[in-house]
């Protein structure tokens, strides 16, 4: 393959690594997608927690609404207009918690109260430094004497420029660093540290001073955007307290970025008070309501990125759906797997041991469409008469090709019962299941390609969608570009490579990034292997099974260790908890939470990226524990479940919801 010389439009992947300029360049508004109000996020005095799984765009939103991007929206206006602009919105200070910074505090040999005081002091100095940088940027070359006077008086230092005050804050941070560093050899380090930590709230006091003493700033709201709240760990009560203390007396409020289940506890440091949703803060989850909106968002994001590269813009190659292909073609995939082979008919050998009879069956059930052949075979395997199925198949094809299927069913409601079922089972719902059976019979692997597939694989994480595109575009060369210009989408093999690469990247990332990465990896591997095994069922009794439920979730919640792992699994994005409680599985009358193994792993374990509902494996506490610690024998596990499930028929009609799930 020729060397890649075309710049990858999807190379900048995460908002975390983007400069403010890049955030602005790649910004596509997600407010409609997530039903968020930009005005509320900017101006609401009540703190807001933005909750979303990895890659949903929390950081992008937080950075976008912070000062250094917002100021670009009011370029070239007078100072007064600029101030008015921020009065009508807010001044956002973006701050990101670093996990390694928190880890440092676990090493310190002092009690939790002192650790918390030191942590808070660092946090305040970092925020104050940013506020000063914002003020310096805001005034630019203008006269800042009054501002400097106010600031220097606040910090009780000699008159200096705003930058000089910033350097003073840097020196305070450095002083703290030095004392922390000296702790390795100095028993008395804590006594040296404590005098540096005042009892006042530095951030609150500074904002009060700015509001009261700097002309024009009296009504400007400061919003502190704290990203990665889950990384704060043991210091969450400290942040909770800050949220709890927000009131109208200070022009200060907070926005937190957090993963689902990111709040370990709602304790505060104020006696027995707890942080309460809808009272102390508003919760705004990043969930989209309609697939269509997510699709549109992905198209717009991709367009912006593709337009930023000359070669794609000049050749009008900015429609990602056209570049990847709109949808998968199951028929074509089935045809390429089967070719001229008849191996799938061998599934009927035990029913028709005689050679001549078998030949007759093959002729009766055969047709040009391999998925239809497979469906016919399956019907026979499940007790249908081969000549009746063959006739039904022919009739169905004839009516469908003549576009008379609907009118026939409508005008012959009783006679058309069989045709109706044939259409229902074959034409949409179970085609992918049939394809998986063919893949199993022929020992082939599923291909993962097309815009629709990438959307589904990304499980609502736009970042994963961008990763899939990035891994696809990294193969781009001149010959592929020529194909695109001719209107041909990027070939399936390359898209499939990209999907597998992305899946492995994500799995590796989870294994590496968490303190318990190996356990999370083991769980993903166990669960993925179980779903893979269900997809290899030649009788298609478990169509596209890729969800699970716990036998008794409360039992897991009450086990601190297992609950911790469950939260880690959700936080890392390995599994996704569905929004509403549902019946756990077909035949199971209990309702509860359903979980999806992130669809991004589907290309590794060869399971479906769609969610069908119906049968879902139920995981006991013991098995959950086992699956975190060692590889499970998926064949044995599935066999055990199959025996329990014998009474359920395949192809039971299950109504799908908008999000692809079912309510049984």
């Amino acid at each position: 393959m020729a060397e890649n010389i075309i710049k990858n439009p999807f190379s900048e992947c995460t908002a975390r690594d983007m400069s403010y300029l890049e955030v602005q360049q790649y910004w596509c508004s997600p407010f409609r997608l997530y039903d968020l109000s930009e005005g509320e996020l900017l101006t609401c005095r009540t703190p807001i927690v933005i909750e979303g799984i990895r890659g949903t765009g929390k950081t992008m939103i937080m950075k976008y609404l912070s000062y250094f991007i917002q100021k670009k929206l009011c370029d070239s206006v007078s100072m007064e207009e600029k101030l008015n602009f921020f009065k009508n919105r807010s001044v956002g200070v973006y701050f990101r918690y670093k996990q390694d910074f928190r880890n440092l505090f676990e090493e310190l040999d002092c009690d939790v109260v002192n650790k918390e005081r030191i942590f808070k002091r660092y946090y305040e100095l970092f925020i104050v430094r940013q506020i000063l940088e914002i003020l310096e940027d805001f005034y630019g070359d203008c006269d800042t004497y009054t501002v400097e006077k106010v600031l220097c008086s606040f910090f009780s230092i000699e008159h200096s420029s705003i930058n000089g005050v910033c350097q003073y804050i840097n020196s305070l941070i450095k002083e703290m660093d030095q004392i922390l560093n000296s702790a390795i050899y100095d028993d008395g380090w804590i006594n040296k540290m404590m005098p540096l930590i005042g009892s006042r709230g530095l951030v609150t006091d500074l904002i009060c001073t700015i509001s009261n003493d700097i002309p024009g700033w009296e009504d400007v709201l400061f919003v502190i955007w704290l990203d990665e709240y889950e990384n704060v760990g043991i210091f969450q009560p400290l942040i909770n307290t800050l949220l709890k203390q927000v009131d109208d007396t200070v022009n200060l409020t907070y926005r937190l970025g957090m993963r689902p289940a990111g709040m370990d506890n709602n304790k505060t440091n104020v006696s027995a008070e707890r942080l309460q949703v809808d009272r102390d803060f508003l919760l705004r989850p990043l969930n989209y309501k309609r697939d269509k909106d997510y699709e549109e968002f992905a198209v717009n994001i991709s367009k912006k990125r593709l337009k930023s590269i000359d070669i794609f813009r000049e050749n009008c190659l900015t429609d990602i759906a056209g570049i990847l292909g709109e949808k998968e073609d199951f028929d074509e995939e089935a045809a390429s797997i089967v070719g001229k082979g008849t191996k799938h008919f061998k599934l009927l050998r035990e029913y028709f041991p005689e050679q001549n009879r078998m030949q007759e069956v093959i002729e009766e059930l055969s047709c040009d469409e391999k998925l239809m052949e497979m469906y016919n075979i399956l019907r026979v395997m499940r007790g249908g008469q081969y000549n009746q199925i063959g006739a039904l198949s022919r009739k169905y094809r004839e009516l469908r090709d003549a576009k008379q299927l609907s009118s026939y069913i409508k005008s012959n409601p009783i006679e058309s019962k069989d045709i109706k079922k044939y259409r229902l089972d074959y034409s949409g719902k179970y085609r992918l299941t049939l394809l998986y059976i063919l893949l199993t019979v022929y020992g082939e692997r599923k291909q993962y390609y097309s815009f629709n597939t990438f959307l589904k694989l990304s499980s609502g994480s736009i970042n994963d969608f961008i990763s899939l595109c990035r891994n696809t575009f990294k193969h781009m060369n001149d010959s592929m570009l020529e194909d695109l210009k001719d209107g041909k989408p990027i070939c399936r093999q390359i898209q499939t490579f990209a999907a597998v690469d992305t899946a492995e990247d994500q799995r590796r990332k989870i294994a590496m990034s968490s303190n318990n990465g190996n356990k999370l990896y083991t769980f993903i591997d166990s669960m993925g292997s179980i779903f893979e095994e269900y997809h290899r069922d030649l009788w298609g009794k478990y169509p596209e099974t890729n969800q699970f439920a716990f036998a008794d979730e409360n039992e897991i919640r009450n086990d601190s260790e297992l609950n911790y792992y469950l939260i880690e699994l959700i936080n890392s994005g390995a599994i996704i908890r569905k929004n509403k409680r549902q019946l756990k599985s077909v035949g199971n009358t209990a309702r509860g939470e359903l979980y999806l193994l992130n669809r991004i792993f589907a290309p590794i374990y060869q399971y479906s990226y769609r969610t069908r509902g119906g049968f879902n494996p139920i995981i006991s506490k013991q098995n959950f524990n086992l699956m975190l610690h060692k590889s499970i024998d998926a064949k044995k596990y599935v066999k055990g479940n199959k025996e329990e499930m014998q009474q359920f028929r395949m192809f039971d009609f299950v109504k799908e919801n908008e999000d692809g799930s079912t309510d049984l």
Partner: protein
Amino acid sequence: MVQQIYDMELVTEENIFDREAYDYFLLAPNIERRSRAAFLKLKENLNIDKTIIMDYKNFHSNISQEQEDLFYCDLGTPLSTAIREETDMAALRELTKVNIQKKDRIAFDITGFSIPNLYRIMMVLKNVIQVEHIDVFYTEPKFYIYEEGYFDAYHNKKKKERRCAPIQGYCNSGENEKEILVIFLGFDGGLAGQVYFSLAEEGQEILQTLAVNGFPSYTAKLKDVSLFNNEDFINKIGRENVRCAVANNPFDVYNLLCQILEDYRGTLLNLCTIGSKPMALGTCLFALDHLDEVKVTYPFYEKTQFDDKEEPGKIWRYGINLL
């Protein structure tokens, strides 16, 4: 004439007598024979006034009393100060109470120390006691033992879960500048990737990540083992971001870091050494000289594992002026 611009030599039977005497010999003996090899070789041939044994608590979790007695017995006669404390930090504070003077002749065998403790002790020697000169000794392992084949994880560190944090003594919050993450590759499968994901993916905003491979390495194949075992990580950061430094030469590492600092002026270097101890020594010396521009991070783990089958290999001496 060949002029050596740094003081590094292989300790052999011939040159062992070049040294006169040491006032202190600092070591952390453990079940691995190489942790004691330099001391045993030197004590027979030159005068060691006092021995300081850093007897770290986590070393004892893996060994029997019998094994422990054996290596104490090995150490023999010189007057010993054994420092045994609950935590590494407490042990270090005890070390500052030993009456070491700045002009004392000190030998420091880094072989048996964990990398974080190496950093911390160097900090104490240079910035607290203000020692002027030390001789650092390092004994290579004779063989690296791979349980699952040469190009697989070095068994001691396989699949350990690590927690990345700054090494205390080398914390630096910086001035809001971007960070350059420099990871010195080791042989253990995937650890560099684990650090990268923890720091660059989940942690701070990293402007650039560089990997440093030990080349030339102790043996010809090792340079490839470290690349092979970190293949995913190298693919992630791009091959053009892999640099080299001689695996057993701290001075080469120091020079490389000077170059990196020059290339990325105005940034904060975040150093993470999971490679050889001499490389860690090089990064440590550099960090001590550039405390304002550097922070040091390490993937800490719960328990140190030792290999009682490991044989001592070559012994190196590095003469270092700390002034």
